[in-house]
């Protein structure tokens, strides 16, 4: 089952294209391919899903190497540059001379009418944007101390000379919104994954039990699930999250928020598992295994589970976006994660009032990333659902 030798599906449809020979070598690869290989081929044909997978791959890559990719420490407060709008990236100066990417130095001024502080570019000072610029010290994954960032303005040691490059501007405390979004993705994008993982265990075990043994157990579990799915999730999430003590350490809070999010996640999975259990139990190959004298355990794990593993994965993928949105909503309302933890929802807390949004509209940037991530997970889920269905070519 080596993937490199696999022909793309377009060339290996069972329909004969060339007359004469019934099955050529490429067709043979198609007929011999294993279940996962077929799923993969079908998935690759789904352009949107492939695109989504690439985008999500970039997201998680950035989250993993956040320290290097971000130009600044997400907690670094540059007081002199608080509430600064996104920097203008330039290639030519006012005289038309080419410098490569750079930003002008920034001077603080006051609006003559409203007397509000505002930032004015100083065309006399030029700060080039460098690759692998030296900046804030950090420890990559808490292990390796370093100070090189993928890009940024080199500031030297004198903080007064510093002219920051804020792609998405800075918040009211002078922290770089872009850096915070990248760091925030560490929380926002993993809440869904870990939540799904928890839901997976609950759903698999409970759904599996209900489906395999049936009877009263099945009935009771299904009733409970009926009630749980019929309740509005967000108010319940809110109620549960609000019960979490305010003074807990960040990590524990994160973990419990994830548990709360997965409380509803398991229900749909349990239903899927149960439904598939019931239908595969009737399949001839399971009957054949029984006639061969296989044990119950081996029938479940070796015959039934592989039969619907793809459905489980699809069902898991589909429930990730809901959890991402759940974390964002809860943190946004101030009852999920709290500062100094950085997540997209926590960042949006700053954008709660119309006043702050009107003055600092760039604080809405996390919205874009939330929607993008959810959209990509939806595309991915769609593609996977199509690919996992053995009866759709």
């Amino acid at each position, binding site marked *: 089952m080596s993937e490199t030798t696999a022909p793309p599906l377009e060339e290996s449809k069972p329909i004969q294209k060339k007359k004469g020979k019934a099955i050529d070598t490429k067709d043979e690869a198609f007929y011999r391919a294993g279940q996962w290989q077929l799923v993969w081929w079908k998935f690759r044909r789904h352009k949107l899903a492939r695109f989504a997978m690439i985008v999500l791959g970039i997201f998680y890559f950035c989250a993993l190497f956040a320290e290097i990719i971000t130009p600044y420490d997400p907690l670094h407060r540059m007081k002199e540059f608080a509430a600064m709008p996104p920097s203008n990236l330039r290639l030519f100066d006012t005289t038309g001379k080419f410098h490569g990417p750079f930003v002008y130095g920034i001077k603080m001024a006051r609006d003559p009418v409203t007397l509000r502080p505002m930032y004015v570019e100083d065309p006399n000072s030029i700060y080039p944007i460098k690759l692998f610029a030296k900046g804030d010290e950090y420890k990559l994954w808490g292990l390796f101390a370093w100070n090189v960032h993928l890009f940024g303005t080199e500031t030297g040691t004198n903080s007064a000379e510093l002219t920051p490059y804020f792609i998405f501007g800075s918040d009211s405390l002078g922290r770089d919104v872009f850096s915070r979004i990248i760091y925030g993705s560490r929380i926002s994008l993993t809440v869904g994954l870990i939540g799904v993982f928890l839901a997976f265990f609950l759903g698999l075990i409970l759904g599996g039990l209900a489906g395999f043994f049936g009877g009263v157990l099945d009935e009771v579990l299904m*009733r*409970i699930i*009926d*009630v749980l799915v*019929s*309740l*509005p*999730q*967000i*108010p*319940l999430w*809110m*109620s*549960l999250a*609000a*019960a979490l*003590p305010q003074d807990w350490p960040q990590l524990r809070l994160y973990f419990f928020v994830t548990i709360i999010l997965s409380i509803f996640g398991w229900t749909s999975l349990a239903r899927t598992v149960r439904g598939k259990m019931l239908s595969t139990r009737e399949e001839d190959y399971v009957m054949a295994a029984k006639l061969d004298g296989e044990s119950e355990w081996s029938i479940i794990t070796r015959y039934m589970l592989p039969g619907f593993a793809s459905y489980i994965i699809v069902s898991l993928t589909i429930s990730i*976006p809901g959890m991402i*949105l759940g974390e*964002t*909503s809860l943190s*946004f*309302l*101030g*009852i999920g994660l709290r500062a100094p933890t950085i997540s997209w929802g926590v960042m*949006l807390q700053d*954008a*709660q009032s*119309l006043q702050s*949004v*009107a003055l600092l*509209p760039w604080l*809405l940037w996390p*919205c874009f990333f*939330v*929607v*993008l991530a*959810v*959209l990509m997970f*939806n*595309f991915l889920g769609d593609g996977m659902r199509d690919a996992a269905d053995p009866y759709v070519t």
Partner: protein
Amino acid sequence: MVNYILLRLLRMIPQMLIISVLAFVIIQLPPGDFLTERINRLKATGLTVDNAEVERLTKMYGLDQPMAAQYIKWITNIITKGDFGYSWTFARDVNEIIGSRMGMTFFISFLAFVVCWSFAIPVGILVAVKQYSVIDYFFTFLGFIGLATPGFLLALVLMYVSFEYFGLKVGGLFSQEMILAPWSWAKFVDFLKHIWLPVIILAIGGTANLIRTLRATMLDELRKQYVTVARAKGLSEFKVLMLYPVRIAINPIVSTFGWLLVWFFSGGTVVEIVLNLDTAGPMLWRALMTQDMYTAGAYIVIVGFLTAIGSLISDLLLAAIDPRVRFGGLEA
């Protein structure tokens, strides 16, 4: 049919039981009971608390009794007297504050529901009939965005856009000067001016979902042989569509009646908070922030009850229009 309704009603009993237990557990979740919490807070502000009063309240809520007894007392009060307890945050009986707000939330959800159905059903049919056309791609794309954008983010962005570009301050249910005014035509118009935005924001997600469902079922049905048979009878294309595939594809849509309302309640909570509406969502939020658990519990029980009623109605509707459900009993 009578049997079906009776069975369906019977099924609501365990459902309500589970919901009430859930609500009670949530009330009890925060460490310490709310009364001590309250007293501590009062003491911290320098007020003295009358011991007799504390005793009276402890007795009243049965706080000195075991959990199960407390639950029974709480639920009995709700069932027999419709009494949901006292809200410390709002310093009034829960019943008093929750009624009008729930009504408002319900009204907004209902409007969103009407908007959602009246838009999604024709569009869903259209995009299925015109599969792979420009219209189809347009609405599919829009639907994906609609599904991925949670209402409260949309509310945030729309709030900003309408303020920045149109100078409008959206939010609230009424203009400042109208809040306390008695109901009049002018107040009603003012109300409509405020309410359309939350209604549309709420409707968008549900609409996207509905169009997607309807499109998929319609495409399945359009392939069925009875459509060709109907055409072979000489019926006009419009009649063929309406009497055959649409007539069947509409069934699952009718059964969305129950969960769409839940969807609006759920999604509405945060939207209402962002838009600063005086409805049930923000009330729950305030209650939760101040650990006013009786209000929160009442919210959950009432919403649970409403959704149970919603799914009852949609099951009965489905049985009324789909003979397979009617004759197949509960399992169909």
